C-alpha cells in the first residue's frame, strides 16, 4: 500500500499533473506558480545535466583507476601530475557561462513577478497573520473574515488578480499556497505584497511556512477560487448583518455575557474584540481552528470546551462552560451563516 502510494507520488511529480497532491509545487494553477514552474524546469535540466556529467566521470575514474593488485607495476606510484592551467581555466569559464545564463533567466522571473503591473480592477485583500490563524480584510467590500480566503478566478483574457497586502499582528509568519504562488513572509512592522490569480475554480490549500510558535503546524490556509457568480454570492452573504435567530437567543446570551466578546467580533452586537477571528459569519465556513477540522456542531462544541482538543497551544483559553451553555453557544455560532 505504501509502495503504490509512493509510486503514485513519483508519477505525480514526474508528470506534474495535479493528481492527489493538493500542495504540489509542480502542479501550478496560477501565473506566479506557472512562471516558477517553467523556470524550475530550466534549472532542473541544467543541474541534471551537470549531475550526469560529473557522476559519470566519477564512476569512470573509480573503475578505470582503481588499484589493481595483480598488475606488474602494482608497487610503483602512478605518474604525479600537479595541474594544468588550461584545464583549470576551462572548468572556470564554462561554469561562469552557465551561471550567467541561469542568472538572466532568474532575473526575468523575479521582475515579472515582483514588479508586475497591477490591473486597476484587481481585488485588494489585507492579510493579517496571527498566532495561529489568518485574518482577511476586504477594504473595498467591507468584509472581515478569517482562515478561508475567497477570491474570484482570473480569466487570462481579462486578468483579475487578487493582491494581498500582508503584515503580522505578532511574530513572523509566511503565506504559502504552493499551487498558486511562492511564499511571502508576513512580518510585524513591515508590509509585503504578493498576488495570486487562480484560473480554475476550486479549493487551494497551503499553510504557514515560517515557524511562529507552538501551533505553527496547524495554521492552515484555504483559498477558495470562486466563479464570478459564486464570488458575488459569497460577498453578498458576507456583507449581510449577522443572523439574529430567536431560536438560539439563549446561546447568544451566553456568548455576550462571557469573555468571548473581548476577543471576537460579531457585527451588530456588543462583541467587538479583535484578538481572535471575526465570527460574524462563522457558520458559513467549512472549517474551524484555522482549517484544522470540519465546521460541524460536534467539533465546534469540543473546540469551545477546550481549543487544545484540536490545537494545543492555541491562544484561546478553555471556556469552562457547563454542558448546557456549551450546547447553546454552539447552536448560536452555527446559526451565524
Amino acid at each position: 500500500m505504501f509502495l503504490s502510494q509512493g509510486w503514485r507520488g513519483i508519477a505525480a511529480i514526474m508528470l506534474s499533473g495535479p493528481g492527489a497532491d493538493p500542495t504540489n509545487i509542480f502542479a501550478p494553477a496560477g501565473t506566479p506558480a506557472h512562471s516558477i514552474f517553467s523556470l524550475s524546469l530550466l534549472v532542473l535540466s541544467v543541474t541534471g545535466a551537470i549531475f550526469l556529467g560529473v557522476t559519470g566521470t566519477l564512476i569512470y575514474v573509480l573503475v578505470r583507476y582503481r588499484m589493481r593488485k595483480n598488475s606488474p607495476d602494482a608497487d610503483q606510484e602512478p605518474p604525479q601530475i600537479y595541474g594544468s592551467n588550461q584545464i583549470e581555466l576551462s572548468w572556470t569559464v564554462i561554469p561562469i557561462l552557465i551561471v550567467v545564463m541561469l542568472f538572466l533567466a532568474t532575473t526575468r522571473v523575479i521582475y515579472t513577478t515582483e514588479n508586475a503591473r497591477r490591473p486597476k480592477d484587481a481585488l485588494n485583500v489585507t492579510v493579517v497573520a496571527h498566532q495561529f490563524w489568518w485574518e482577511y480584510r476586504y477594504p473595498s467590500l467591507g468584509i472581515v473574515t478569517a482562515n478561508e480566503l475567497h477570491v474570484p478566478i482570473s480569466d487570462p483574457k481579462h486578468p483579475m488578480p487578487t493582491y494581498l497586502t500582508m503584515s503580522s499582528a505578532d511574530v513572523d509568519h509566511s503565506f504559502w499556497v504552493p499551487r498558486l504562488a511562492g511564499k511571502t513572509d508576513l512580518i510585524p512592522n513591515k508590509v509585503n505584497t504578493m498576488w495570486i490569480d487562480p484560473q480554475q475554480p476550486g479549493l487551494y490549500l497551503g499553510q504557514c511556512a515560517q515557524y511562529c510558535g507552538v501551533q505553527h503546524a496547524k495554521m492552515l490556509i484555504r483559498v477558495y477560487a470562486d466563479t464570478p457568480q459564486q464570488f458575488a454570492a459569497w460577498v453578498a452573504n458576507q456583507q449581510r448583518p449577522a443572523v439574529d435567530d430567536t431560536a438560539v437567543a439563549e446561546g447568544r446570551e451566553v456568548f455576550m455575557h462571557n469573555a468571548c466578546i473581548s476577543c471576537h467580533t460579531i457585527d451588530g452586537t456588543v462583541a467587538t474584540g479583535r484578538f481572535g477571528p471575526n465570527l460574524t459569519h462563522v457558520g458559513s465556513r467549512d472549517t474551524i481552528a484555522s482549517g484544522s477540522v470540519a465546521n460541524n456542531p460536534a467539533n465546534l462544541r469540543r473546540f469551545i470546551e477546550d481549543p487544545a482538543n484540536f490545537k494545543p497551544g492555541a491562544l484561546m483559553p478553555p471556556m469552562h462552560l457547563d454542558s448546557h451553555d456549551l450546547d447553546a453557544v454552539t447552536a448560536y455560532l452555527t446559526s451565524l451563516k
Partner: protein
Amino acid sequence: MATHIPFDQAHAPEEIGDKTQRKLWLEVLHEWVTTVDHKKIGMMYIGYALFFLVVAGFEALLMRIQLAVPNNSFVSPEVFNGLFTMHGTTMVFFVGMPILFGFGNYLIPLMIGARDMAFPRLNAFSFWISAFGGILLYYSYIGGSGLYGAGSAPDVGWFAYAPLTAKVFSPGHSTDYWTLSLLLTGIGTIGTALNIVATIISMRCPGMKMSRLPLLPWLYLVTSGLTFVAVGPLTAAQIMLMLDRYLGSHFFDTQAGGSAVLWMHFFWIFGHPEVYILVLPAFAFANEIIPVFSRKAIFGYPAMVAASVGIGFVSLSVWAHHMFTVGLGAAENTFFVLATMAISVPTGIKIFNWLATLWGGKIQFTSSMMFAIAFLFQFLIAGLTGIMLSVAPFDWQLGNSYFVVAHFHYVLVGAILFMLFSAFYYWYPKMTGRMLSEKLGKWHFWLFLIGFHLTFDFMHVPGLLGMPRRIYTYEADRGWMIWNMIISSGALVQAVATLLFVYNMVWSYFKGPVAGPDPWDAWTLEWATPSPPPSYNFAETPEVSSRRPLWDLKHPDDPDSDYEIGPSHRRRAKEESA
C-alpha cells in the same frame, strides 16, 4: 634547503598500552583538565563533539518517530519545538564547530612542523568556555522556565527569528539559555580562530613557505578568517537581544518600532559564512585524504587555494539568500541571486580538481577513502540543490520547506559528516596508535550510506509536495506520509551505523592493529612523528623543501620540489629540454 625530518625513534612508544606507566585515574583526570597540549585539547574537542553528536542525533530520532505518520502524538508540540531547536543549535555549535576545531587543533601544528599552537593557554581557555556553553544550553532542560520548577528547552528555532524571542512571546528563561550559551561558545570560537591564524602565520617550520603550506592548514586559515567576520555579528545580536529582553531596548521589539528583519540580517551574515566555516574543514580533509589514497599529488594546488579564498570572500555577500521571501524587493533579491550563483564557480573548481586528482591514480578503497568518495558524490548533489535554491523564484517555493531541510542536511551530513568519518578512519591511527577495524569500517560505511540516502534523498520530496519545515505534525490528505515513513526508517539505519562506529572506536582503542608512524604511506609531516606523537611532537624542528616532505624522503630521485614552482608546473621539463 634539503628536506630534513629527524624521526624521534628514541621516544617512539615501543608497545602501546604499556602497563608500567599506568596512573591513578585522578592523575589522568588532572592531566586532561589542566593540559595545554594541542593534541589533548584537540581530542577533548572531538570527544565532546561526539558526545553531543549522539545527543542531538537522538533528538533527531525522536522527531522522526513523531513525523513518521500524520497526526501522531508521540511528543507534544511544545516538546517537538524544543527538539528541533536543540537539535539544530547543538549540531551547529556543539558538534560541527568543536569537532572541526578539534581536528584543526590536533593536526595543524603537526602538519606545519610546530610543537604546539601559538597560544596554548588561550587554546585551553577556548575549549573550556565552549564546553561550558554546551553544558549551559542543556541545563535549560532543568532551569529553562525560570525559578518555579520544571524546565523547558529553548523552542524558538536555531535561527531564533525576532520577535518570537521577545519576552512577551517567549517568557521564562529558555531563550536566555540559548542566547548565553551561544555567546560563550562564540568567545571560545573566536579564541580558537585567532590561535589557528597565529599558528599558521608564525609557527611554520623552516622551508614551509605559504606556497608549500599543506591544503589542510590553508583551508583552516580561510575558515578562521571567516570566523572572525561571522561570529562578531552573532555575538552583537545576542547582546542586543538580551538588552531587549531585560533592559527595555527595542532593537527587535516590533511592538515598539523595532525591526524583525534586522535580526535576520544579523543572524544570516553570521549564518551563511557559518556554513562555509563548517564545510571548508571538510574540504581540508578531502584535500589530504583523496591524494593519499589516489597515490597522486593534489591536482591544481594553486587553484585549490585560490578557490578556497574565493569561497571565503564571496560567502560574505550571500547571506540574504536566506531572505528571498522577506520582501526585500526585486533589486536586492537579484543581487543575492548573482552572489550566490557566483559561489558555485569556485566550489565547482574544487570538485573538478578532486576528480582530476583521482584521474590517473591508483585508487585504494579503504574505509577512509570510501567515505571521501561518498562525500564527493553527495557534495555534488548538495551543490546542485543549492543552485536550485539560489534561483530566487524557485526558492519562493522551496524555501522553508522540507526541500531546504534535505539540502542542508546533504551538506552537513552527506558532505561534512561523511568527510569527518573519513578523517576519523585516516587520523585515528595517528591519535591513538591503533588502526580502526576496516571490517567494521566497511559495515559502518555501507549502513550509513544506505540510511543517509533513505533519509535525505526522500526528504526532498515532501518539500516539493508543499510540506513546510518545523511542523510537529501534518495533515493526512497531503500525500506526505509515505515519504515521511521512508525518511524515518532511514534515520534508524543511520543510528545503528553510528553506534557501530562508536563501537569500532572503543574496540580498536584496545584491540586494533598497531598503526606505526605512517600506516597510509602518506606525505605530510604528521606522519613523520610516532603514533601517538609525544607531547612535543618533533624532537628537532623539521625542515622542508616542498609541499610533500615525506614524498621527497621516500623518492629522493624524484622530489616534489622540482615541480612546484612556476605557473606552468613544468619547470623541470623546460629545464631538461633547454
